[in-house]
């Protein structure tokens, strides 16, 4: 299996202009995606003509083929972004470029209300507009936070800083977390997420 996977990765890497290592990641990611979405089509095969319109529309909306293609685009975009973050950020700039960073699968390190570090990645452009008013004292005590915010404001790359911020947060959080902290942190993060959603919905 490994030999075949390696040969395949090398072939796909050449075709798609990716390194063999990244190509292997792509193959594994798409295979996992396919295994997941194939379950959506694993139900009994029923002639759509025999289904009510609402049920038929629902089944069409959750068809594995469409979801594979849509999610596959994100994976490819993320992999390409992961390979060339500086180039892509420099070319496009601004909030949309920040949004693409998260497709590399990397959580950013914003520590919301003392927890929630992995909740607010750069995966939602609209939510980034609401960030600065919600950062906790803990988040602001992270030495990388202010620098990241400056980079976001200037639309310059900040992914590497984000990783460092996350690792700093993780070490700090691990040292001070207990079960009460976890519970209250999750509640606070959930509440903040609702506020972001409400803010988006009201725009």
């Amino acid at each position: 299996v490994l030999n075949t996977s390696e040969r395949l990765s090398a072939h796909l890497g050449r075709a798609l202009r990716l390194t063999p290592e990244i190509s292997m990641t792509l193959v594994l990611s798409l295979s996992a995606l396919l295994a997941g979405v194939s379950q959506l089509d694993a139900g009994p095969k029923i002639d759509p003509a025999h289904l009510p319109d609402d049920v038929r529309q629902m089944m069409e909306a959750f068809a594995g083929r469409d979801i594979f293609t849509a999610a596959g685009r994100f994976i490819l975009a993320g992999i390409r972004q992961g390979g060339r973050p500086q180039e892509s950020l420099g070319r496009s700039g601004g909030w949309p470029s920040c949004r693409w960073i998260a497709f590399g699968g990397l959580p950013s390190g914003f520590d919301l209300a003392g927890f929630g570090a992995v909740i607010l990645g750069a995966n939602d452009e609209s939510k980034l507009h609401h960030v600065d008013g919600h950062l906790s004292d803990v988040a602001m005590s992270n030495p990388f936070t202010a620098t990241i915010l400056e980079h976001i404001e200037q639309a310059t790359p900040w992914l590497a800083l984000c990783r460092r911020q996350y690792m700093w947060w993780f070490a700090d959080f691990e040292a001070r977390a207990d079960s009460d902290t976890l519970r209250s942190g999750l509640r606070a993060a959930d509440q903040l997420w609702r506020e972001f959603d409400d803010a988006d919905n009201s725009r």
Partner: protein
Amino acid sequence: VLLALTAQKFEDWADSLFELVHDGIDDEAFLEAYQEASLRDPLMLKLSARLGGVIEHNVSIERLIESKRMC
């Protein structure tokens, strides 16, 4: 038998990708090709979906190791 069949399907699937994906292919065409290769043989996905959860749980360790070395 199911392990061997799964391994064979994996090889066939890889061969399909070698055939369908060519140098310079764009991302959209690649995704189409990947999906086509995966759907060419309906057994491929069915066996893959059951490999870790069912098939591999019902063979001996020796058979499992053997199957991992087959391709």
